[in-house]
Each structure stands twice: as structure tokens, then as C-alpha cells.
């Protein structure tokens, strides 16, 4: 039985063209640009300066505060600058640029390719490892993992949910991990389960990855307490709240967190990172990125060092096609369009999508015909058309009543609108105006 959520949702063209492409490792880039803010929270504090020599896996920026993460060098070489550089968000932010000389790893990292099944570390040691190695959520939101593993006093989680939905069209990074790193993922889940004291874990996977479901189901028989559940293919199935709703029937209250309903959610890619951090003592300096697009010569799944410039990935996938017009970090629904190919791969970048000029053009905006489609597809049950007209008419005082901040910006409304109205753009604008208004008060 496939599970899903009941409210809203869309089914965009899946375009998982790289689903059959095994993960290949990309060579170490000639330069690496490593932003100190690759996660939600406070930026890490740079520990190196221009001219310093660094090794692969060496910590180069330390997390400050609780919601923060350490940053490690992904290459061996010399720091050429610590400066404000453009990242995938389009803003200039502090980053460390390293010119690569060789690839010499830190001594304490286990580079043996063999599987380490037995967990030798104690629970506090596991916690320290996830902090030390800079583990953050790999699904895109990049919330520091150690934060989710600690609960406020008196609150207990009942169930661990592993997000393998990968509902973004085109992206297949998690899919390939399920197929190629199934054991490692399962060990990672077991580690997290024991660390936070939860018996039960459910892995939710959209049904367009039957081989992934099958592989993990087969392996899960050796891991008590972990079950695999197929999910109906529906966007945004991978939204944390909707995944919880689908798998447990519980609804995270508006403005609340999964822990409010006794659930903790991690991405499946994060579990692999936890495995590497805990079992191999390896910091988060590599990730899987799907480089894809209908016009690309060689769309692929790459294992790349964090900090590799996006241009290197495009080159490895056959170069930028003639009619390429939009380069997106992430998938087509929630990804960010890049304004330059010099930005680096960061911890949360699961895909790189190249669209041609026809695909990237927005169609002319027409009047709202009140067809109800945006309301019907909204997975949060709000009214995008109403919010857009409130923002257009600058009636920001009503935006709270429209529950604008319930919007998780999945883009289903803009996707479905037959009048091509940029509903989500206006919702974002409305959120910003509302925030400003509240600050002024």
C-alpha cells in the first residue's frame, strides 16, 4: 500500500533522466571555494588566513553557537583568500578559497573503503562526532544535524522518519545513494536511532524509485526496527510536514516542529553522512550532486568535493549546451537560479539543472480567472490567489489572516496557474513586507 498526504499536491513531469547513472567521483577541483555559511544558523568563524596550508578534512572554520556547523577543507592546498564571494544564493558571503596542490587527507580519517558495521562509539561520542564533522541536513534545508538530536527537557520522540521521497523532478542523488550505499545508510539510521533513543524508524520513498525501495527493504531485514514504506508520487511529498502526515497520519501544527508530534525527520543523504562521520571519522566534505538537463550531453550523478565550482560539474557533464539559459542549484520546483557558474557546491546542493531558453521562459501573465486551482493544489490549505491580490493592493495588514507564513514555498500554485500568475513571487514579497511591518511596530 502506497501512502500519501490528502491535501493538495501536484504531479510535475518527473524527468528523472539520471536515475540509471551510477555515482561517479569527480576529480579534485583546481580551486575550491568554501563558504563559511552552508547551513541554517550562524556562519562559522574562519580559522585560516591567506597563505595557510590546509589538508583535506582539516577544519577551517568553527561553528559558533548551538545552531551552527563546522566547516572543513575539502582539498589539500594553500588558502588564496578569505573574502566575500558569491554563493548560490546570489549574495556575497564570506568564503575561503583554496588553491589545490595535492590530495593529502588528515591522518585520523579512515580511508579504508570497507564497511564498518559495528558501532564502537558511546552516545555522547556520537553526538560530538556529528558536531565535529559538520554534519547538516543534506536534503536542502541544511539544518545542523546535532540540533535535531537533542530535545528540550521532558520531550521524547517516538518515531524517526527518514526522508527518501526525493520529490523534486530531475534530481536523483538520493535515489542513487539508496542503490549504492544502502548498508551505510542503514548503519547511519541505526546510529541515530540509538543516539536519540528511538526504537522505530520509517524510511519513506516515492514509488518512482521501486529499485530503491526494494534494495533498502532487502537490507532492512537485517536491521530491526527499520521499515521501508512506499509513497505515492506526488509533489511535495518530501516536505517534512507532508512526509510525517503521509507516514503517521499526524499533522504538525501551524508554526510547529515535527517534535511537537513526537517525530524527528532526517534526509536519507544525511544518514550516509552520519555513517561516514561516526564510523570513518570523515567530515562532511563530499556530497552527491545530480547534474542534469534535457539538453546536457552527459547528465550524471557525481560525488563531488564541497567547494567545487559549478562550472567544473557542467564541464564534466559535457559542457554548457548552446541554448542553455537557466542554471539552477537544486530541482526545478524549489531550486535557485544561478547568475554565475563560479559559485561552489555546498552541503545542501542536491542537483544542478540546466534548462534551455524555451524551458526557462516565463509565459505572459494574464488576469486571475479564479479557477480555484491554486487553492486546490496548495498542500498547506491556504489561498495563494487571495494573498497575491492582497500584496498587489498593498493590504499587508490582512496577510496574517491569510496565514501567509504557513506557506513553505513549494511553488505548486505558480506551477499550476493557467494564467501564469507568479503567485509564489508575491507570497515571498508579502512575507518580506509583513516582516518589515512587524519590525516597524
Amino acid at each position, binding site marked *: 500500500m502506497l501512502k500519501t498526504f490528502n*491535501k493538495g499536491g501536484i504531479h*510535475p*513531469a518527473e524527468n528523472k533522466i539520471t536515475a540509471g547513472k551510477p555515482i561517479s567521483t569527480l576529480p579534485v577541483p583546481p580551486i575550491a571555494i568554501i563558504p563559511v555559511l552552508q547551513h541554517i544558523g550562524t556562519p562559522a568563524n574562519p580559522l585560516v588566513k591567506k597563505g595557510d596550508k590546509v589538508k583535506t578534512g582539516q577544519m577551517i572554520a568553527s561553528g559558533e553557537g548551538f545552531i551552527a556547523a563546522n566547516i572543513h577543507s575539502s582539498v589539500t592546498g594553500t588558502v588564496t583568500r578569505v573574502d566575500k564571494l558569491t554563493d548560490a544564493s546570489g549574495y556575497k558571503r564570506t568564503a575561503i578559497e583554496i588553491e589545490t596542490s595535492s590530495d593529502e587527507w588528515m591522518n585520523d580519517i579512515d580511508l579504508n573503503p570497507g564497511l564498518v558495521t559495528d558501532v564502537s562509539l558511546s552516545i555522547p561520542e556520537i553526538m560530538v562526532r556529528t558536531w565535529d564533522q559538520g554534519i547538516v541536513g543534506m536534503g536542502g534545508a541544511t539544518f545542523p544535524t546535532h540540533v535535531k538530536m537533542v530535545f528540550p527537557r521532558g520531550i521524547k520522540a517516538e518515531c524517526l522518519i527518514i526522508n527518501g521521497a526525493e520529490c523534486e523532478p530531475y534530481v536523483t542523488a538520493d535515489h542513487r545513494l539508496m542503490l549504492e550505499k544502502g548498508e551505510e545508510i542503514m548503519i547511519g539510521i541505526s546510529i541515530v536511532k540509538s543516539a536519540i533513543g528511538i526504537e522505530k524508524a520509517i524510511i519513506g520513498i516515492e514509488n518512482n524509485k521501486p529499485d530503491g525501495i526494494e534494495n533498502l527493504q532487502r537490507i532492512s531485514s537485517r536491521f530491526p526496527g527499520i521499515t521501508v514504506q512506499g509513497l505515492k508520487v506526488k509533489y511535495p511529498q518530501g516536505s517534512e*510536514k*507532508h512526509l510525517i502526515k503521509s507516514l503517521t*497520519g499526524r*499533522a*504538525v*501544527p*501551524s508554526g*510547529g516542529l515535527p517534535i*511537537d508530534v513526537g517525530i524527528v525527520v532526517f534526509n536519507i543523504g544525511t544518514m550516509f553522512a552520519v555513517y561516514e562521520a561516526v564510523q570513518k571519522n570523515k567530515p562532511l566534505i563530499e556530497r552527491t550532486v545530480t547534474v542534469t538537463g534535457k539538453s546536457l550531453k552527459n547528465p550524471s550523478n557525481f560525488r563531488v568535493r564541497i567547494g567545487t565550482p559549478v562550472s567544473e560539474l557542467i564541464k564534466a557533464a559535457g559542457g554548457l549546451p548552446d541554448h542553455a*539559459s*537557466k*542554471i*539552477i542549484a*537544486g530541482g*526545478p*520546483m*524549489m*531550486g535557485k*537560479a*544561478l*547568475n554565475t557558474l563560479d559559485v561552489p557546491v555546498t552541503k545542501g546542493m542536491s542537483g544542478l*539543472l540546466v*534548462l534551455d*531558453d524555451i*524551458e*526557462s*521562459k*516565463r*509565459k505572459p501573465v*494574464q*488576469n*486571475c*480567472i*479564479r*479557477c*480555484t*486551482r491554486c*487553492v486546490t493544489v*496548495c*498542500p*498547506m490549505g491556504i*489561498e495563494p490567489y*487571495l494573498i497575491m491580490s492582497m500584496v498587489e493592493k498593498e493590504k499587508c495588514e490582512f496577510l496574517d489572516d491569510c*496565514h501567509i507564513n*504557513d506557506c513553505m*514555498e513549494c*511553488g505548486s500554485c*505558480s*506551477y*499550476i496557474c*493557467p*494564467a*501564469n500568475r*507568479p503567485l*509564489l*513571487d508575491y507570497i*515571498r514579497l508579502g512575507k518580506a513586507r509583513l516582516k518589515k511591518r512587524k519590525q516597524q511596530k
Partner: protein
Amino acid sequence: MITVSPAPHDHSNVSVSKLMFGVIIALIPTFIVSVIFFGVGVLIITLISMLSCVAFEYLIQRFILKKEPSISDGSAMVTGLLLALCLPANIPVWLVILGSLVAIGVAKMSFGGLGNNPFNPALVGRVFLFVSFPVQMSTYPEPLQNWFTYTDATTGATPLGLMKEGIKNGDSIPDLMNNIPSYIDLFIGKMGGSAGEIAAFALIIGLIYLLARKIITFHIPVSIILTVTIFTGILWWSDPTKYANPLFHLLTGGLLLGAIFMATDYVTSPMTIAGMWIYGIGIGIITILIRIFGAYPEGVQFAILIMNAFVPLINKYIKPARFGERPENE
């Protein structure tokens, strides 16, 4: 050159014009049946109505509002087609043009064009003609006798008109039913009436097409039809000599045309499922109140316009259920 825009970067292939042309396709069976029963008159009024609606929209946008005309979205064509299909096939050309002007000029463009009109434009056009030219609007050509006649067609009454007249004279329903076409005739459309309202089966084919293409949802037509069935069913059960049965009410007048094509107009119907039920139930009740207790034999047109007026209120108070509004933990 690199394009930069906010997400999402993908769009469904649904568009306003595709939806509008979908409605036109759904009306083709009705149109064909209408031509078979009423002949050349249907062709004339449909052509004139569609042309004049598109022309008025173009002229008003171009010369009065001074903006880029948007006739390619197909909405004026839908209005024109619907207006023609709810007029008698023998109505003079100048009345069709006047009706189009009221539909497009008054009911649609004066409110700001597509999407901003509170009332269904085609119905406003029809009701304007109905109250201003009651004679021309209540003489209906006889079916199968007027293939080559237009304004000089032989005319007769509609089943609902016969019913209203008979009840006024004190006749009982079973007697009256003898003068009314059989249910088979009502189903295939062999009766007097507006051009597009007669053929129940063709309208139902249109409904199936609209539902299959996901152009509309079932809520509005089904709520109207269910309400009419239940309401007339209760009355009929209470006194079958005084009230006609539900099947008669469903198959006559503009009920199906209204429920399937007029009430479901996106712009003038509610935004939520619960709102659609309220709207549909309201239309059903008002229709039957007018048909049975009111002065006019038919009430669908007024029922829809009255409920159109309630739509902003419905949208204000009937909100979709939000995700996580109430903690629903098991």
C-alpha cells in the same frame, strides 16, 4: 545569456485559452443537436453572438480601456457561444448583438474584464434580453419543423411553460403530463426551448468531457442536480397531483445547461469545495422556488445570478482547511 528568476522553474501545460477552448469543445455535441432540431436559426445566432462578443471585447479593450486586447484567451468566444445557446433560435439578429453588448460591455468589461466580473456575462446578457424583450424571449421554435426558417419559424411553448400555464388553470399533473413530450423526447431534446438547453444527453456528454479533462470539478453540477432532485422529490412525494416529479424538472428548461456550463463559470463561482456545495445547493433551491412558486416558468438564470452575488460572501467565510490547523494526533 543567463536567465535568473525565482522558483518554480517549471509550469504545468494548463492555460486559460486551453481551458476556454475545452469548454467550447464540450459544447459541440449540444450545438450539433441544437442545429438538428432547430436548423439554420441556431447557426445564425451562434455565429452572430460569438462574432459580436469577440468584436465588442476587442473594441472596448482597444479603444476605451486602451490596453492590449486579450481576445486570444477564448473567454469572449465562450461567452458568445453560451449566450447563443441560451436564446431561442428564432430571435432577431439585432437582439443577439444587443445581448452580446450587454454581456461583454456591461457584465464583463465594465468590471475590469476577465476574472473581475461578479456575474456570469452570458447570463446577464440573457436576463437583460429576457426582461426587456419578453415576447421575443418566450416564443420558442418548434423542434424538427424549422430547418430552413429563422425569425419566421413556427413557435410553441416549452414543457415548463405548459406546466406553469396548466397549474394556473387548475389542471392536475397527471393530466398535464399527457400534453408534454415523453421522457425519451425530453432526454434527446425534442421539445421547445432555448437553442442549447434542450438536449439532456448532449449536455451530459459535455459534462463528462469537462470532468475527464479536469476543466471543472463535479461539485457544482452535482450539488445543483442533487438539490433539485431532493427538493422536487419531497414535493412530488407529498402530492404527486400538484407537483411534477424530479425527472421532469431535471430534463426540462435550462437546468442542465445552467448547472453544467453557467454555474461552473470559474470567475463567478466559489473558490473552495465547501463553498461550491453551498453555492450549488442555493442555486438548486432558488431554481425550484421560482419554477414552482414564482411567476416565471423557469428560474435557473435568476438562481445562478443570485448565487453569483453571494460568491464574495461565501469566499470570505468559507475557507479551505489549513494543514495543521488543529492538532489531529492519533
